């Protein structure tokens, strides 16, 4: 799945491992969307009942928030941010 990357919003790349259960990818994509990001690129590999997902997402919200929401999914084993996270903004509101 690829869409054109838009320049105004930052891109983040995320590596995610999760169980290959029914609706696994839908679950993942749904969290990405509802937490304010767009999927720009996605590659999936399956091995021994585990999905290895490489994601590029775009969004203006803090990506660490997306990370913690993905980690909360019961079937997600690991979420790694592969782009460096910018230092948090000085504002108190996230």
């Amino acid at each position: 799945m690829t869409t054109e990357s838009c320049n105004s919003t930052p891109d983040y790349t995320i590596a995610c491992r999760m169980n290959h259960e029914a609706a696994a990818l839908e679950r993942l994509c749904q969290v990405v969307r509802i937490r304010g990001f767009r999927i720009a690129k996605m590659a999936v590999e399956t091995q021994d009942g585990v999905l290895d997902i490489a994601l590029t997402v775009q969004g203006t919200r803090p990506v660490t928030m997306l990370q913690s929401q993905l980690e909360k999914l019961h079937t997600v084993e690991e979420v790694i941010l592969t782009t460096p996270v910018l230092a948090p903004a000085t504002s108190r509101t996230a």
Partner: protein
Amino acid sequence: MNGAQHILEAFHRHNIQTVFGYPGGCIMPLYDALVDDVSVEHVLCRHEQGCALAADGYARASGRLGVCIATSGPGATNLITGVANAHRDSTPMLVITGQVPSSLIGTDAFQETDVLGMTLGIVKHSYLAESADELPSILEEAIELAQSGRPGPVWIDIPKDVLLAEAAVAPTCRPTPKEAACPDLTSATALLRAARKPLLYSGGGISLAHAEKSFRDFAESSGLPAVVSLKGIGNPGKHSAHNLGMLGMHGSRAANRAVDECDLLLVIGARLDDRATGKLEGFAPNARLIHIDADAAEMNKLLSTELTIRGDLNTVLRELTQVLRETPLEISEWRKQCQTWRTTGGFQAADNEEPLTPITGPAFIRQLSRIAPDDTTIACDVGQHQMWIAQYYQFDHPRHHLTSGGLGTMGFGLPAAIGAQFARPDSTVLNVTGDGSFMMNAQELATIRRYNLPVKLIIMDNQCLGMVRQQQELFYNNRECQINLDDNPDFVAMARAFDIPALKIERTDQVRRGIETILAYHGPMLLHVAIAREENVWPIVKPGGSNREMIDETRRNSADKKEKVA
């Protein structure tokens, strides 16, 4: 044993004795298995939304798992509001639905809906059971998951053939997780000690963690002035001298003022919801924040926090109590200041005891609070009456106050009260509802009658969707639209049609007698309370506004009412 029998087996193993459900085609194998079961009580509600909300009320009142069951298609879709309600308030719930047989999935079969896809956003987790052999382990995992960490609804969708298939698998018993070690609290203690005006802010997470007692000990021994969210009402107990009440949109002046002035906010088991914080930029502007919660994803979600601690609230609170007992905080000036706010900015509704005047919401609730026994559980609906309960009823325990906080589901109260009465058969259970909300699940009167539940129903009838009317008055220049309910049914006659006795009151001098009559009655009874249409909930913060800008009665909108011509 077939798949259906494995489900009952899991119920037995986990001591699940009460479930709420409604039968239909694809779930029939489970109902067939129920015929031979002696230990599970199946409560038939009259709408699947009623089943889910009753299971939710059962779980909230008891602290145990709520279970609801429905058939595929319309049964499953009818559950959705109730499950979303549980999800938003983190209620531990197990949802079981039948699905069309595996071979028919994806063929647009009769009563097929994509339950798994449709419910992804309202569950903690969900399963499609693909074979009977995997069902026992799915059940074990689901039951554990629904109740652990931050609880929530877990949904298992089971094709009919899986319910019927024999499965030889021995039931699995999962080891109970070890008690987690206490996170390091040194920095938290240091921040607390450095603060001159520390404030405790607790929410629904306290009872979700079964940490009511540890919280009470901590609140008492720390002597911290305290505010609560809507879901945290009852945490400090009704005799707490430090409790400033609810903060937020309809919070007390005392609570919002204290948040505004504090220099440290200790947030425990609360998620800083927008109804509680108001505009974030103006929230606790002088405070450093410590956030303690079971859910890591809540940390820094909306506000960046000085210190986050993820852990079991019981463990953390016990440890903190210990530390503060050894060396108490020196904050007597601040305590005194909060006391002053508490006496001048709390909710002290003048009781309008003029005998022939119309009943006002706040005065009625105050009276109810004085008369009802201590262990009373109140399930409210959504609207002005819900806020009056939050403001004026003195709750001594968070599980006594059942309210739809996150989703704000009109129609929650009646089924939730049914669930609560099953959870606490010997306690007084009240449903305090509005004339709008009552009609959203009124069919459950039949459930109350069938099981002869002594639930008391109180309808605060202002002949309108009061909360919407209030906002139209204040924020839409009095342009009323679609809020009029002056053609409500005769609620007394309606209750009687379900063989539930009922009584109507409309003047202040009838309040005491009315309340005493329904409370003394041995079975279910309905009290229809006519109240003024134009009354508002005060104070109020404009949605999106800062909690500092509380609006009160002096700001009523006197603009001419404009109603759409019919």
